[in-house]
């Protein structure tokens, strides 16, 4: 049995107390992952209760009541302020041990980190619980920008503008948010918030719309659309030298620029051919290629990390439906139910899941869709219509 011992120390900000984890990682790889949790009904351990709740959100993790039906057993022992968590692979008795020193103010955050560690070790793919969600929402009549964790906790309002703030995008290191702020007398400004020191600086302003797309993977550049009502421009902004470049301009409407993960292309939406469709702009040879053909209204692309597949929103009979497709269009599937509208699809970094938002009259829910089984899991619901959801 191959074991690697790894010591991880968490120093939680704003707290003098810390949690330390001692983990022994084994390498079992089995799907679906059935976990038996001993003492799972113990209410006094918030970290453990949260951990079990979060793990059970994963569509490919099943919390079972019968240890004979399980692949893994999760158990914990509490000694003073130390919790010893043991995850064992029942077929071979391989084990992962976590030692948690209690006392942190942020037990919720610790649970999320633990959930990622357990998930990553049993599934051998990147966890999603450290992801952050940015979105825009009505706050007493004005749209403001908010950030939360992936289970809808720790929601923070990060703007306090007198005019609407919309379309936030989070940098890959989760330290920056670029967003659009309206002017009262027309025009918009792109602004960048540094989440560490809370600087909120103007990047670019003009009449009409300026809406940011995604950052590059190194976080040094982002793409945006500038549209004055007549000409649309697909532009890039380099954060290191403040240099802007017009990559493509057109008299048609452009929206939602996203870079695909192989770094060679930007996807964007254009109605150049009459109705909105998704196009790829090749950064190397500057050529353009249309990649959606099956619907006459295709928007909001998001790419799987290898860049071979993407999801997009198609408007079919008044309902926003999410489809997955390969770039060549050969693999193609509807991911969402036929009678419910979804938007803001995001392919997770581990390729397994797609996040999507569905809004009702007074609330919005973020869902996780398992791309292989199409199983839906609700991550959270907020009592408001949120929009422009972006996950990193």
């Amino acid at each position, binding site marked *: 049995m191959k074991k690697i011992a790894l010591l991880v120390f968490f120093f939680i900000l704003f707290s003098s107390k810390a949690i330390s984890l001692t983990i022994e990682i084994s390498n079992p790889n089995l799907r679906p992952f059935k976990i038996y949790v001993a003492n799972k009904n113990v209410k006094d351990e918030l970290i453990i209760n949260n951990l079990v709740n979060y793990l059970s959100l994963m569509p490919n993790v099943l919390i079972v009541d019968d240890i004979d039906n399980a692949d893994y057993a999760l158990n914990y022992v509490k000694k003073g302020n130390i919790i010893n968590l043991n995850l064992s692979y029942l077929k071979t008795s391989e084990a992962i041990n976590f030692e948690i020193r209690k006392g942190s103010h942020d037990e919720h955050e610790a649970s999320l980190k633990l959930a990622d560690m357990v998930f990553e070790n049993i599934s051998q793919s990147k966890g999603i619980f450290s992801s952050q969600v940015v979105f825009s929402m009505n706050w007493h009549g004005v*749209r403001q920008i908010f950030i939360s964790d992936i289970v809808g906790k720790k929601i923070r309002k990060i703007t306090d503008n007198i005019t609407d703030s919309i*379309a936030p995008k989070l940098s890959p290191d989760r330290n920056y948010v670029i967003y659009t702020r309206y002017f009262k*007398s027309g025009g918009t400004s792109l602004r960048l*918030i540094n989440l560490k020191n809370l600087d909120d600086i103007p990047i670019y302003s003009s009449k009409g719309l300026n809406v940011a797309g995604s950052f590059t993977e190194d976080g040094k550049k982002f793409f945006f659309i500038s549209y004055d009502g007549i000409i649309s421009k697909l532009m890039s902004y380099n954060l290191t030298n403040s240099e802007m470049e017009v990559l493509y*301009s057109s008299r048609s409407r452009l929206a939602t620029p996203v870079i695909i993960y192989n770094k060679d292309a930007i996807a964007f939406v254009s109605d150049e051919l009459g109705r909105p469709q998704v196009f790829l702009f090749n950064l190397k040879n500057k050529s*353009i*290629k249309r990649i959606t053909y099956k619907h006459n*209204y295709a928007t909001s692309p998001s790419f799987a990390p290898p860049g071979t597949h993407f999801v997009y929103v198609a408007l079919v009979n008044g309902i*926003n439906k999410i489809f997955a497709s390969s770039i060549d269009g050969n693999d193609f599937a509807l991911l969402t139910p036929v009678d419910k509208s979804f938007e803001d699809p995001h392919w997770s970094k581990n390729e397994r899941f797609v996040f999507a938002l569905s809004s009702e009259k007074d609330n919005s829910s973020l869902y996780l869709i398992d791309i292989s089984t199409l199983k839906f899991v609700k991550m959270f619901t907020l009592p408001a219509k949120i929009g422009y959801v972006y996950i990193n």
Partner: protein
Amino acid sequence: MKKVFLLLCVLFLIVSCAKQKVSTQPPQAEKSKMEQNLNQQMEQNLNQQEEKKELKQPETLLSSEASMQDQKEEPKKTTVEEVSPTMIAKAQTTMTDATNEQSVLSKMIHFDFDKYDIKKEAQEVLKEIAAYLKANPEIRIIIEGHCDERGTREYNLVLGMRRAQAAKKYLVDLGIDEKRIETISYGKDRPLIDEHNENAWAKNRRCEFKRIK
């Protein structure tokens, strides 16, 4: 010497044009044609070097364009406030501005789904607004473009912009100075009626006219 220089220029032009590749493997001939058109247009656009030069000076652009705005765009410290679901529920007040405008500016014009052409009924409203603006030359307005809830938020932003721009163009064609008219889009973010039916959608696909104070 001149001939050599000319020859070099021609060679340089040929090489520059050759760099603009066109996508070569579209699934159908029709697609190929469309993409070629797109690429040709893109080549023309990329050749607009003046535009590029202008945009490589963000500070200049920021200061000159910010002067057109009502608010100064300056760096600031933002504030972070932790909020609860209860606070969120309480904060969901109406997003539609209550207009106290008693004039013709309180009228709206409406559009068909995913369209921005000015319909006959809208033309009548715009003529009234133009007459009002001619009679009140000190008034400047902003036209807000709005959409119904169908489609995605970011795409509806640009559709709303097109609607506002179409209304502005109509007013300018009626003799109103374009400097008196600003445009903006709220996409589907500020519906007039927050319902999911054709009646609500038809009312939400609109342009509103607000006086700039």
